[in-house]
């Protein structure tokens, strides 16, 4: 199950965590981007290379920027000042909370799946 923080209409406090519904096919890329930004800011090309290195997935440019614009719109990442044409992005507090909730949920599913596999099919 995937989760995404939603900004409350009233203000800019970290929002409640609600099921991801609005990202559609960009949910996967959004998760990879958030995970990549967890250890510091990166611009588009650096994000592509980092994600390719840790996930083995090369995000196409259009997909990457569609996900970036949605994440920025939701307040999960923010653009930083740039002195050249490449603009770095960093995680916001809400983005960090969202990523943590999402990865926790994924870990629960992974742990459960591995336990069931071990009990039915034996240890790996």
């Amino acid at each position, binding site marked *: 199950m995937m989760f995404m923080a939603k*900004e*409350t*209409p*009233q203000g800019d406090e970290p929002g409640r965590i609600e099921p991801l*519904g*609005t*990202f*559609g096919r960009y949910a996967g890329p959004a998760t990879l981007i958030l995970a990549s930004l967890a250890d510091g800011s990166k*611009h*588009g*090309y650096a994000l*592509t290379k980092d994600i390719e290195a840790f996930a083995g997935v090369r995000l*196409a*440019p*259009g*997909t*990457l*920027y*569609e996900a*970036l*614009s*949605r994440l920025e*719109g*939701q*307040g999960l990442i923010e653009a930083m000042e*740039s002195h*050249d*044409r*490449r*603009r770095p992005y960093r995680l916001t507090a809400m983005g960090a909370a969202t990523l943590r909730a999402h990865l926790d949920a994924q870990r629960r599913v992974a742990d459960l799946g591995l336990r069931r596999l071990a009990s039915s099919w034996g240890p790996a």
Partner: protein
Amino acid sequence: MSEMPEAAARRAARLLRWYPRDWRARYGDEFAELLIADIGERPKSRRRHADVAISGIVARLIPTGLTGHAIDPADQVRASLASLGCLLGVFLSFGMAMWSQLAIGWQWSEPDTTATFAAMVLMSGTMLLFSALAVLAAVPIAWRVATRVARRQSHGLVLPSLLFFAGAAFLVIGSRHFGNGWPGTGGHPWAHQGLVPGGVAAFAWASTLSVSSYWAHPGALSSFPAAELAWMAVSPVAMIFLVTGAARTIRRADLSPGTLRYEAFLAHVTAFGMLAFLSGACAWVVNGGFGPRNLFHAGTIDMAGLIVMAVALIVSYRAIQRARHGSLGLLER
């Protein structure tokens, strides 16, 4: 990266054209940098081109409220309702053409299949529902526009309102004129024996004359009176004026959150109506029989109409979902 190969920069610039101006102003430079790097690493990539094209189209659809981008709840409802209005215009253009064909057929004789009979009853009932919904939806918007005009706050509303009224007036006058001129309905002594009054059937028929398979047969088309041909060509433009005017009025009327929630509720009911109408149309096209055996035969244009209506309904469902999402956001305020 500072030494941009000219060819890669040109290709990146071409790819950027898929995106709208606002998007390019915000992301254009950095996105071009990424594209140039990507082109340098993978000079020939169809996947990249397709990916950029799809993402660019999605970016162009953001103002329609259909894409799921985070926007203000009130803007979301307004954009979704405006999109729904446009989709409903397309749906009804084809739907009314089908319905009027059946209504006119029934002026002369009763349908000879149960499917056509049931379809006609369902489609006619839905048409009544659409009429009631149109009135219910229009009243608060018209009231809001009138209030703003009275307070001299009509900035941004005058042009869309004029567009709407010009389109509506042209369609009504033209449809009345060409509907009265056709002997198959209102003016015929045998008329008024069907489910739908002859005048209404003639009006619907004339207003959708442009939805015709005659466009594929220029020889037959050339035998039409010039005035009728001109009407067939111009009436869709009037319909576009009407729908565009209505959509822009919805977006600019600054409706209250309560009104927006009310309109979003009506949009839900509209979806059920569209589904019922399409079911009726399907029943007729599938079971009503092909070939010119009787007045109720379904033709190629009706098959094409079904496809267009189905697509319009699917996209409308998305618009209604997004309107509901925005409506829930308004409730949290």
